[in-house]
Structure formats: C-alpha cells, structure tokens
C-alpha cells in the first residue's frame, strides 16, 4: 500500500472542487485585473474613489459590526446560563437554539416581516397598549436588517460559547472562589478570558455571515443596498459582470482579512497559550 | 527448522530508518518475544510480519515462500491488538466467526469451531453479547479467540496486556502461554514489559534502535547479557570499562588502572571479547570498613554518597576511585552518608559485555 492511493482517495473530491469552485473563483478574480490592454487595477481605483460604492461597503460593514456586537451581548449571558444547566436541561435548550439555525433563512426573514411591518405584530401591540400613536417604520430599514441578522446568527454564537464554556474545568472556578473572588469576579476574571477563543470564532462566524448574507437584506432591507444584494443586482439585473466581479473579489478579500485578523487576535488573547 | 526469516529488512519513516539490515529467524512452534524500549522498532517488525506495512528493502520468507509482497489478507496470520480491536457492531460470536465466514467455512462448522475456541479462552455463554458489554480481560480473550479460530500459520501479539490491570495481566499471560503451548502455534509477541516476556517466551529478542541486540532463551539473557544495552535494560546497573582483558586458567583477569578483578569463566559465558564488566546492584557486596581493613581481592574502597530506602532493602550509591556504583543491600543497621565502605565483586556474578 503506497502513499499514492491516499491521494487517489482525495483526487475525485479535489478535482471536483478545483474545476467547479477554485477555477471559477480564480477566473472571476483574474478578470478584474486583466483587460484587453493587460494588467490593471483601474477597476478597483474607480471603485474606492466612488462614494456610492463606499457607502454600500460601509453600510454593510456597519450592519455586520453592530450585528456581531449585539449577538455577543445577547449570546454570552445566555451561553453562560445554558452551560450551567444540568445535562438534560442543557440538551433541551441547545436543541431550541439549534432549531432556528437549521430553519430556512427565507422562513426566518419572512417571520420578521410579519412582526415589524407597519401592520405587524409589534406595531399592533405598541399602538394597542397606547405606547405609540403612529406605527414605527422598522421594516425596509437597516435596523430591520440588523434584527434579522441577529436572529439568524445569534444561535451560532450561543452554541460556540456553550462549547467553550463546557470545557472550562469546574475546579478552576472553585479555585478562583477559594482565592476570594466573588461570583461576578469569577465570571469577569476567569470565565470571560477563557472564552476568548470561542468568542473570536463566534464573532468570525457572525461577522462573515452578516457581511455576506443575501436573503435577509433582500427581504428586510429597503432602498439602501448591502454588498451582497449589490453584487446580485449587478450580476443579474444590470448584467454588469465587471463590477459584479470586483464586488465579489472585495467580498472574498474582506472575508479572508477578517478571518485571519481574528485568528491572530485569538492567538494573542488565548490565555491557555 | 525455521518457519520464517526476515532478511536484510529496511524500513524507513519520514526518511528516518526504523529498521535497517534487520534479520530474524524464528523456529516453528516457538513463542518469541520482541522486547525493547519504545521506539526500538519492535512494533514495526511485528506489523511488517503481519503485512500492515511493507519494507523498503529486504525479504520476508515464510515456509520458504517469498511473502514480501503478499497482502495482509492473504497471509493467514492471527493478530491480537493492544486495544483488542473488536468489531463494535458485531456480537462476540460474529466477531469470532468473522474470519471463518471469509474463508467460506460451512455454517455448522463455524458454529462448532467458534464454540470450541470460546471454550478454550473460557468465554462460554458470551457469544450473544456485544463487545461494549465485556470487561477488558474478556475483550482481550475474544480478540485471542478471533485470531486463533482461523487456525493461523502464525500468531502475532502487539502488547496485548498493556491495557489490563496488574493482576489480570499475570493471569492472562499464563493463559496465553497455555493456549500457545496446547495448540503449538508459532507466536511472535511484542512487549516492553520484561517480566512478561521472560515468563512466557521460548526466546526473547532484545531490540534497540532497529537492531536485535540479543536473541536467546530468557535464562541466558538474564544471566549473560551480551551487550551493554541489554545488560542495562535487564537491570545490570554497574559497569566498569576495563583496560585489559586476559584469560588465564579458566578465569578471566581484568585490569582497570591499579585495580585487578578476576571472574569465573563457565561454559555458558560465550562473550569474552567485550571489555566492559557488568554487575547487578543486588550482587555487589557491601560492608562498612574499619581503619585496619586491607583491600580484599575483587574489592574496592568507597564512600556512601546517597542512601535510598527501597522497602526490602537499602540502595546506596558508592563513590570509588574508578567511578560510582549502585548497591542494594538488606541490612538491619543502614549505612550512613559519608561512611567508608568496602565493595566486593563476586567472581561468578560479574559478566563481560560488548
């Protein structure tokens, strides 16, 4: 049994991914740099000089950052609570967390359309109890996108953090308490630092997911575009493949950049070394 | 007559030689152990014999046929794994019958042979259970039964007892030896536990860095290690590198600086080419020295440096003019630190090694 056959096992899959994924992606990247007259970064220069595009890019980045921060703030205490539960309750709560994750994003975004619309559940309740007179305009605004994205990605951060928190040895917490730390002190000084790697992974998942999400902004977003719907519009509605390709490359670059930066951060902050 | 031979085998892993110019001959019906520290190549040798890996160079002859390139599944060798390797999805019966089914044995015959072998390993009544319902020792016996039932030409054990607790290990090795002798199956047994190897083997091969240092029956190895590595490995902790070695009147005279030692040469001691004397801590004689004591023959003056209590005896490290020696001694009144002592090297306890 030589090593050759190991590669033989991998060959079909690698070949498939190369032909149908890597080659198309690299060709897409290539076309943004090469025109009839050779190598050029003209397309990108135009892009970054263009306030319209930069507006879309920054809106998307802003929405993604806010989504990530909200998800962490909502997800962290919940993960802590869940990880403290007994095995049966924990399993049940995890199932409840995972369930939305496996539900179609179309369904989840649509459910928010029912809730935050002018005639939606939320406005009906608020006007019903007399808190407001005019219904709030939430649907078709960036706020709506953020709500939808938090709903989409919050489970990811919860389960990632629960996974990390489960691996914190209980002895460590007892030890900290025996050294005189209060419950809150234990949480801040021991639990939080030990969760950093999980927090980073979770943040990557939420940020990258928000940055590239299509369904939620397409359904809940209004006149303001985000980068993924902008790519779609250029590719399909405007048939401008040059611009679509540049947007695609920028999306890949931002994604890769964020993942590598966060990984560096994770290595630096990891208290376990 | 030898059953199989490994000739000039070389195996390398990541460009590092694990075995090089490796030779081994094993006789039919014998239980041969490969013993050595981890990384010495014993498991590699066993896996090579089994066919799980192939040598870069050299030949493997089995019953005078070239087996070098024969795949595992065509070899008809039984292999018993360290971690049992039972099929978790099959019952004990199906685990044992696995090899027989592949050999297209008839149903009734399978039934008979499986029950028979379960009887041999004392596991009657377990055939309907699944591996996870068995204890470690029981699993190991199933693993042995599964390897035995195919009537293998060769039985291979890879540290089969290392996952069992001490008591079970002792009874299992007796069991293995009993079965092997009853059935007369040639067996290669790998372990890093000396006691285990010595107690069950016809022959033991002590390996180091991909080479067999000594292949002999256990008693010979125990008494007459042939190399410094073997001696050290089996508990000879004290070594003296002599300047000269001379044979005289059935005795050997050794010199180290100003000191002269004499050791008995009996029939079994073959090695007099070596210049290193070796002796076990248990065999050195130690006693306190009073001011007037002269140096006895085969003796040295020294001073106690370290004392450790071993339970049954005390262990001392004694500093002498030609180096430090480790001595075990049962004594009511232990020697104290810095005590002047006399060491004596009994004539018939020191051996010469390479």
């Amino acid at each position: 049994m030589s090593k050759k056959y190991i590669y033989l096992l991998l060959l079909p899959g690698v070949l498939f991914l190369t032909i149908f994924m890597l080659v198309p992606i690299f060709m897409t990247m290539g076309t943004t740099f090469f025109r009839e007259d050779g190598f050029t970064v003209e397309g990108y220069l135009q892009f970054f000089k263009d306030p319209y595009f930069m507006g879309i890019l920054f809106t998307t980045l802003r929405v993604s950052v806010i989504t990530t921060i909200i998800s962490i703030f909502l997800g962290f205490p919940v993960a802590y609570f869940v990880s403290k539960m007994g095995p049966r309750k924990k399993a049940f709560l995890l199932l409840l967390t995972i369930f939305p994750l496996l539900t179609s994003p179309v369904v989840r975004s649509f459910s928010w359309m029912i809730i935050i619309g002018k005639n939606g559940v939320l406005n009906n309740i608020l006007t019903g109890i007399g808190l407001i007179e005019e219904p709030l305009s939430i649907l078709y605004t960036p706020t709506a996108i953020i709500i939808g994205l938090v709903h989409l990605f919050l489970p990811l951060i919860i389960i990632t953090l629960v996974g990390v928190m489960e691996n914190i040895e209980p002895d460590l917490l007892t030890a900290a308490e025996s050294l005189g730390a209060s419950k809150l002190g234990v949480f801040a000084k021991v639990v939080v630092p030990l969760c950093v790697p999980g927090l980073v992974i979770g943040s990557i998942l939420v940020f990258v997911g928000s940055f590239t999400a299509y369904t939620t902004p397409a359904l809940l977003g209004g006149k303001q575009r985000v980068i993924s719907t902008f790519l779609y519009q250029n590719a399909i509605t405007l048939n401008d493949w040059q611009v679509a390709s540049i947007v695609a490359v920028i999306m890949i670059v931002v994604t890769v950049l964020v993942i590598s930066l966060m990984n560096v951060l994770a290595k630096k902050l990891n208290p376990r070394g | 007559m030898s059953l199989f031979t490994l000739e000039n085998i070389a195996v390398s892993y990541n460009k590092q030689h694990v075995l090089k110019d490796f030779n081994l001959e094993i006789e039919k019906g014998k239980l041969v152990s490969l013993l050595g520290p981890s990384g010495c190549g014993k498991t590699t040798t066993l896996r090579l014999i089994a066919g799980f890996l192939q040598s870069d160079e050299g030949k493997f002859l089995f019953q005078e046929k070239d087996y070098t390139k024969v795949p595992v599944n065509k070899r008809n060798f039984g292999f018993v794994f360290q971690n049992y390797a039972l099929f978790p999805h099959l019952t004990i019966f199906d685990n044992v019958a696995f090899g027989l089914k592949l050999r297209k044995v008839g149903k009734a015959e399978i039934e008979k042979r499986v029950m028979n072998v379960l009887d041999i390993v004392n596991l009657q009544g377990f055939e309907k259970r699944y591996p996870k319902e068995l204890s470690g020792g029981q699993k190991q016996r199933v693993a042995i039964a599964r390897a035995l039932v195919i009537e293998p030409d060769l039985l291979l054990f890879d540290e089969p007892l290392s996952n069992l607790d001490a008591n079970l290990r002792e009874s299992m090795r007796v069991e293995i030896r009993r079965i092997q002798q009853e059935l007369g199956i040639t067996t290669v047994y790998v372990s890093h536990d000396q006691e285990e190897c010595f107690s069950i083997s016809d022959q033991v091969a002590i390996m180091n860095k991909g080479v067999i240092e000594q292949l002999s029956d256990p008693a010979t190895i125990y008494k007459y290690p042939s190399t410094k590595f073997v001696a050290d490995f089996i508990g000879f902790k004290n070594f003296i590198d002599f300047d000269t070695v001379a044979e005289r009147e059935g005795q050997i005279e050794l010199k180290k600086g100003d000191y002269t030692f004499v050791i008995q040469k009996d029939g079994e001691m073959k090695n007099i080419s070596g210049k290193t004397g070796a002796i076990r801590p248990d065999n050195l004689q130690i006693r306190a020295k009073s001011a007037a004591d002269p140096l006895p023959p085969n003796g040295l003056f020294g001073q106690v440096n370290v004392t450790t209590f071993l339970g049954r005896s005390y262990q001392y490290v004694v500093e002498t003019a030609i180096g430090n020696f480790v001595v075990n001694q049962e004594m009511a009144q232990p020697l104290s630190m810095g005590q002047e002592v006399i060491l004596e090297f009994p004539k018939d306890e020191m051996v010469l090694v390479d």
Partner: protein
Amino acid sequence: MKKLLKSILVMSALTLVLAACSSKEGSKEEKEPEAELIVSTWGFSEDFFRENVYAPFEKEHNVKIVLDTGNNADRLNKVRQGNSDVDVIFLSDYYAQQGVAEDLFEKIDSSKISNLDKIYDVAKAPLGEGFGPAYTIAQFGIAYNADEVKQPITTWKDLWNKDLANKITIPSITSTTGPMFLDAASKISGSKEFNEDQAFAEMKKIMPNVVKEYGQTSEFVNMFSQGEIVAGPIMGMYFASLQEAVPNAKFVTPAEGGYAVMNTVNVVKGSDQKELAQSFINFMLSTEVQEKSAKAKIDSPVNTEVVLTEEEATNMTYGEELVNSLITLDMKFVNEKSKTWIDRWNRELVQ
C-alpha cells in the same frame, strides 16, 4: 490495490452517470407532450393565464408550456446570456427595445399573425417593423389608499407632499416605469422638454417619502396591502389586486398625464419553435383571449373587436381615445440614456 482502483473507477463512473442523468431527467420531466414552448413572463396573475391562455393553447397545439418568471431586467439578461432556451418573451416596450437593439429577437412574419389586423395601429409594431406587437397597453398613473391619505391625490406633484414621508414607493430606475416617473419628475420641475438635471433634483426631493423602490409591480401591491405604503405610481392593470386588499384604494390619471406602457411579445432568436411561437402571439391577440383578460381586469385590450361595458372598462385602458391621450416616451432615447440614468440614480438618490 487493483480492487481499490476498480472501486474508484466505478465510483467516478457512477458520478458521471448521475451528472448526466440529472441534466436529462431535468428536461425529461417536463417533456410529456412532444413539443415544449418556453415562455418568459412576469408571473403576475399566473393562475389566470394558466387557465385561460396556456391550457387552451397547449391543448390545441399539443405542446407543453414551460414558464420562466421574473422581472423584465432579470429575464432579458438570461436571454442575453444565451443559456435559457426561451422561445417567447413578454417584455415591456422599454426592455423589448433593448432586446431589439441587441439583436436578440427573430423578425416576425406578420402574414402568420392574422389577428394583427384587429388591433390598434400603435400596438402593431411599437418596436419597429417586424418586431413583436403589444398585446396590452397599460396606463401608468397613481394609486393611493383613501383611508390613509387625507388630501385626494390628483397630480404627480402630490406625491412630493411632506405628509407622505416614508409612506410611498417608486419604481426602480431599472424597471419599465422608472424612466416614466423620471420624466414626470422633469415635468413637475416646470421644464417643458425633458431635463435630466432638474428631474434628478426633483427625485432627490421625493426620496424622504420613499420607503423602498419596487422592481416588480407585485412588490408594490404587497407593500400597499401590508400598509407599508399608502400611495405610489403604478400601472393601472394591477389596480384590481390593490382594491382586493384595500377596498378604499383609488387609481387616478394624474393631471399632468398618464403614461402608456406597452407590453410586447417577441420570439427569441435561436428559438427552435418559431412557428409555434408565432401562433402563440397570434393567440394572445385573439379576441377571445383579449376579452377574457379584459373582463378579468388583468390586461387592457388592444383588440378593437373587444367590447366592454362601462363597469368592465373601469380602471382599464379602454378605447382609442384614452389610448391616444397617454404620454409615450421615445424608447430609443430612453435606451441610450438608461445607463447614465441608472448610474446617477444609484449615486445621487440611493444613499
């Protein structure tokens, strides 16, 4: 090793077979009758068309009609990319003009389309001789919810009213009626001729009122019935659906004038069903189909033989007089400018 190789070969062969099957089975599934006519359309009132247009046509010609639905732009682009096998395409005049300019359509043999004689002259060949006729003329006007809008809306200008902040939608510039609304903006700026800069300046002023642009009119209907918007410019043919959801909805022809939207049918170049496609166009223009869709308030008729009662004609673009009163844009001009407009629209308005 040999066995392993063999099994890998078998695996990869399986994979290939599977891939082949998937593509075959895909088309086979739809291929119960002999021929297949692929029709690219909006998907609006699909049930009506399925029952009253496609089914009878399928039966008569023993053909299976397969639909590709979506907005004008997306569907035209699929034809541009040349991988859609579409035979017949329904497009508004604005998009059809692009298709003509890019040589995407077959010339039509007018002798094969006998019903052409029965329709309005303006509808016979709005894109030029030999290209597809308009099967309906719609009016682009304003709809509003009378329950929510206090001052009745009568002019385009009324949509700029500050009371409507965050309460209207406008057509996206990439949709058919987008340029028409831009023209309306130019008109209310006071300019007689179309003035691009002034039009965009006016557009900028209306944006605070806009919740979301719509790419497809059904989105308008959707937002209107959900209360997300209370008014907006829309084609008259969709009014029936608005009224269904909001009984007090009103449709008006603005004082500055409504616009004519001609929806055309064309045969896509390279179609292997040219004959059948022309029969289909002929069928669309037939008195029978035109009358049914008029009475269902789906499409206003272009066939002059269709006679409607006053009630039936409400909200329909019915009668030569009305048809002639509608403003028509020079689609060639629109086409030339559209790239610039889309660009300015995106840059200046959507922020």
